[in-house]
């Protein structure tokens, strides 16, 4: 595959777009000076390599997505206390743009399932996930949300991935705030390489 450089004019202004294809080094060599200038002038958002990995438009969209992850408030158990500590001043989740906890799933991007989920709670969890608009992600926080943990019994879902598609599993019982922040950063890394529309192909059991 070759890098296609398309030049168009929008509102009387010349725009240059590069699409991905070749190996990164070759692509960088093949870019002409004008292309670099356009990118430098219009897209001061991410590294050039990142842009070329997924395409300029997707890179911009992904940048916007991953730097303002609005979590849905979904504290189920003791992990929620650590989640609150993550939001508080010492660990300050706002440094990663995820401080806006929404009470309504309609305004949320990421659901942090913090705690053990009972089978009675499972339909509500699924419903809140369904109510979140696309694109949406799920972090299973702690051992219980990931695999049931110590609650290996009839009442508890053995991992919320039976109910909703989980993007990041955060280990710990409960995980420390640093651990949850690491999970959020891993999710950001994941979003960085996402293609537009990719979330729609996620398997929902």
């Amino acid at each position: 595959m070759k890098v296609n450089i398309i030049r168009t004019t929008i509102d009387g202004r010349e725009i240059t777009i590069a699409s991905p294809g070749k190996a990164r080094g070759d692509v960088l060599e093949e870019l002409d000076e004008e292309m670099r200038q356009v990118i430098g002038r219009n897209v001061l958002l991410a590294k050039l390599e990142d842009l070329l990995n997924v395409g300029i438009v997707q890179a911009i969209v992904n940048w916007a997505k991953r730097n303002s992850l609005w979590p849905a408030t979904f504290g189920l158990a003791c992990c929620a206390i650590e989640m609150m500590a993550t939001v508080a001043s010492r660990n300050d989740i706002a440094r990663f743009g995820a401080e806006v906890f929404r009470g309504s799933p309609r305004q949320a991007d990421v659901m942090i399932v913090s705690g053990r989920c009972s089978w009675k709670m499972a339909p509500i969890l699924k419903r809140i996930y369904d109510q979140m608009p696309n694109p949406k992600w799920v972090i299973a926080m702690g051992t219980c949300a990931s695999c049931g943990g110590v609650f290996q019994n009839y009442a508890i879902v053995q991992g919320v991935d039976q109910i909703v598609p989980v993007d990041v599993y955060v280990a710990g019982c409960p995980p420390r705030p640093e651990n949850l922040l690491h999970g959020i950063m891993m999710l950001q890394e994941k979003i960085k390489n996402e293609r537009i529309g990719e979330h729609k192909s996620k398997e929902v059991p």
Partner: protein
Amino acid sequence: MAEQTQVLTDIDRLLQVAERLKNFLSEEAIENVKVHNGEVTVTVKRENLTEALQYLRDEEKFEMLVDATAVDYMHLRNETRFDVVYHLLSLTHRLRLRVKVSVRSDDAWVPTVCHIYPSANPYEREIWDMFGIHVEGHPNLKRILTYDEFPGHPLRKDFPLFWQPGQPLEKPEEKFEEW
């Protein structure tokens, strides 16, 4: 010269309550009275339960039902499998009394005490939900902790602990019998 007064302990007072309850009901209405760990337990017959609790509330001033629950003695007793337990508190006399009713598994029901102690309502629903002991006359006898489609009663000793929805509900192996 100060008059010598006898100081009654809480256990003495509770045993007096049990004695008065026995006089009020009848000799055979009370199966036994036990003292263990400074706590007094009165086991009454099922047909005298509401009468006994009514008397204890009105005459002996046990105004408060603190808890009502059940115990499954599946591997420990042959005749009666369940005990339904009522914990009473007297705020007037600062006493606590435990009332028990023994129930057979093939005849598992108790009368409701909701009209005596309204706080018994959720407790009796929990007894039904967890142990499958039917509560006769309860105004709203539905499951309270598990969901409506839940099969069985999970606090019974023969409920498979590791069961998950979608699996067949099999009885656990008999290895529990050993201890």
